[in-house]
């Protein structure tokens, strides 16, 4: 079948069909990204926390911009080559375009990877600390947990209607290692008996679960049956009365029926089965160490040494004494802006709020802060000459360059130095290409007790709305890059035959693919300044 209007324009539109198709698609894409951009703008305007301004390392973003612009030029040249009938040139330009796309994605991957390895903690007083979390308890095992809740468990209560296989699979071994045994004798309706002290097992829980659910179903069926029986018996005695109307003195029809149902239930007592909704296990050694990833549950009292309960998302309750659940963080960023914001809301002096913050009680960090105050004062003097003043970022945020650059310099030496000389001590952009590199530079470590942690997350969409929009928009854009590169690669690797038979067709297809590619570039042209520079 001959496909019409592949090359020649239709009379009504003046365009060939593929052109119409791609422009319709691009119009929908404009609205899609437009929506995301407006989402970003309004999240930023109404943010209830200090927005992370100019927080991303610029270099990867800048290189990616160059890569995309370069590929936009080469894709046009690839199309030009086809129009001039130069297959070899087309191959070269198109290959460069695809290599550019691959490079773009590699850089994006490096950036994302750095974010996912970078930890942030919002402390109880809203100070934000950033860095790399080390394994808990001073372990040198790289794979050891970094942020787990630890509890010295005295009992584990399993909710039989909610217990989840996925949770038990991971927790089961810990329960078994901890010597968890039944706290009291368990008699099931099928006659099986488990004595007090029976070791915890998946089979035991499964059997108890099946028994409980069957018993609960049986009992509820009897309840429904008796309820119906009671209504059927009493309704005709009070014709025309609604359930909320009084029928016997001040008692409503509903209350009378409910009292009668109770009587009926007493008569059928022997038909009811025993239900055991929860199983309680205790460690045979008195206590057992349990460790849980914070995403799986919540610790009621995070203070070490206090009584606490760890509630998993499947309603399992692990009670005992909270063990050390602190986070060891090698700090590469400190931000007091949120502390200041909250202090101002409460009418407290921001300087006092910062000075009294928990973080500054640490001697190492206090030294860093003292140096930072000195630098800010020098900056202030410098800016006053131009009638300017330091920003909140300047005053209340310490970035990794400052921490890394001034580690070896004493505050007395800094006092004698000029502001620009101090800046010269900071490591350059290349040294922290996609973020601070903890392998090259040793950052001060602070042990953050769990009760000081208000919220913690790696720099993922979970951390705040800035990162949520950053990952959404750049992720979607990255998918467009991959899709565009695949289409263009198809023309490169499978276009030869069409080039020989119908060169105009291929040129048209490359033009359409190129239009999409330019659009991808166009989106990035806005993304780069908005996300990296504003």
């Amino acid at each position, binding site marked *: 079948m001959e496909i019409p209007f592949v090359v020649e324009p239709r009379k009504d539109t003046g365009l060939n069909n593929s052109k119409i198709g791609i422009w319709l698609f691009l119009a929908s894409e404009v609205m899609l990204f*437009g929506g995301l*951009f*407006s989402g970003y*703008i309004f999240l930023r305007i109404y943010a209830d926390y200090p927005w992370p301004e100019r927080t991303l390392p610029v270099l990867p973003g800048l290189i990616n911009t160059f890569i995309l612009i370069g590929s936009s*030029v080469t894709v*046009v040249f690839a199309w030009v080559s086809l129009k001039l009938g130069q297959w070899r040139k087309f191959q070269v330009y198109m290959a460069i375009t695809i290599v550019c796309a691959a490079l773009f994605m590699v850089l994006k991957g490096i950036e994302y990877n750095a974010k996912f390895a970078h930890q942030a903690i919002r402390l109880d007083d809203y100070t934000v600390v950033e860095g790399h979390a080390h394994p808990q308890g001073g372990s040198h095992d790289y794979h050891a947990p970094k942020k787990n809740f630890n509890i010295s468990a005295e009992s584990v209560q399993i909710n039989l209607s909610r217990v989840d296989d996925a949770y038990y699979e991971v927790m089961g071994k810990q329960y078994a290692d901890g010597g968890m045994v039944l706290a009291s004798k368990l008699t099931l309706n099928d006659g099986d008996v488990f004595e007090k002290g029976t070791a915890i097992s998946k089979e035991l829980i499964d059997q108890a679960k099946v028994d409980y659910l069957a018993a609960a179903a049986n009992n509820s069926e009897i309840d429904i049956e008796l309820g119906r029986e009671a209504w059927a018996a009493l309704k005709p005695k009070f014709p025309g009365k609604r359930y909320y109307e009084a029928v016997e003195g001040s008692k409503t029809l509903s209350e009378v029926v409910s009292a009668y149902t109770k009587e009926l239930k007493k008569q059928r007592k022997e038909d009811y089965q025993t239900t055991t909704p929860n199983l309680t296990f205790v460690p045979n050694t008195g206590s057992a160490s349990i460790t849980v990833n914070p995403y799986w549950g919540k610790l009621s009292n995070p203070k070490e040494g206090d009584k606490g309960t760890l509630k998993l998302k499947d309603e399992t309750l692990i009670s005992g004494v909270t063990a050390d659940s602190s986070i060891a963080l090698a700090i590469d960023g400190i931000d007091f802006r949120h502390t200041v914001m909250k202090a101002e809301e409460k009418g407290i002096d921001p300087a006092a709020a910062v000075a009294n913050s928990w973080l500054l009680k640490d001697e190492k960090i206090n030294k860093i802060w003292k140096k930072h105050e000195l630098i800010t004062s020098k900056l202030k003097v410098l800016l006053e000459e131009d009638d300017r003043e330091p*920003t909140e970022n300047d005053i209340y945020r310490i970035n990794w360059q400052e921490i890394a650059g001034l580690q070896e310099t004493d505050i007395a030496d800094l006092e004698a130095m000029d502001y620009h000389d101090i800046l010269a001590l900071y490591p350059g952009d290349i040294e922290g290409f996609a973020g601070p590199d903890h392998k090259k530079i040793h950052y001060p470590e602070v042990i953050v007790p769990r009760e000081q942690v208000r919220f913690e997350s790696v720099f993922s969409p979970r951390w705040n709305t800035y990162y949520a929009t950053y990952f959404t928009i750049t992720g979607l854009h990255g998918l467009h890059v991959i899709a565009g590169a695949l289409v263009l690669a198809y023309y490169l690797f499978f276009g030869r035959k069409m080039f020989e038979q119908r060169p105009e067709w291929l040129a048209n297809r490359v033009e359409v693919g190129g239009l999409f590619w330019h659009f991808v*570039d166009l989106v990035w042209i806005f993304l780069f*300044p908005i996300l990296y*520079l504003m």
Partner: protein
Amino acid sequence: MADSPEAIKKHIKLYTLIGAVLFVCTLLTVAVAKFEFLDFGQRGFDSVDAIIGLLIATFKATLVALIFMHLNHEKKMVYWLFGMGLFFAFCLMAIFAFAFSDPIEFQAFFGR
């Protein structure tokens, strides 16, 4: 669209030039954000920086759209399609902007 081989050959130089302008503009965007002496308005990021940054980005995007995407000599239908897309995207932003007239914050707008 003038896409005869002769016309296209003439455009090659233009495409290279536009590529170079885009590179320079990108460097300029970074420079105005990074260097103190190019920071107009207050120190740090402020509305002036936002306007300058977005103006440069819009200029770059316009070049890409006009030259690389050939919007400088397209058929009427394309302008309609793309224009409608842009129009509705701006409408969407305008709808969001109504959040500003929240009656709780701006009682005068809806009366008391």
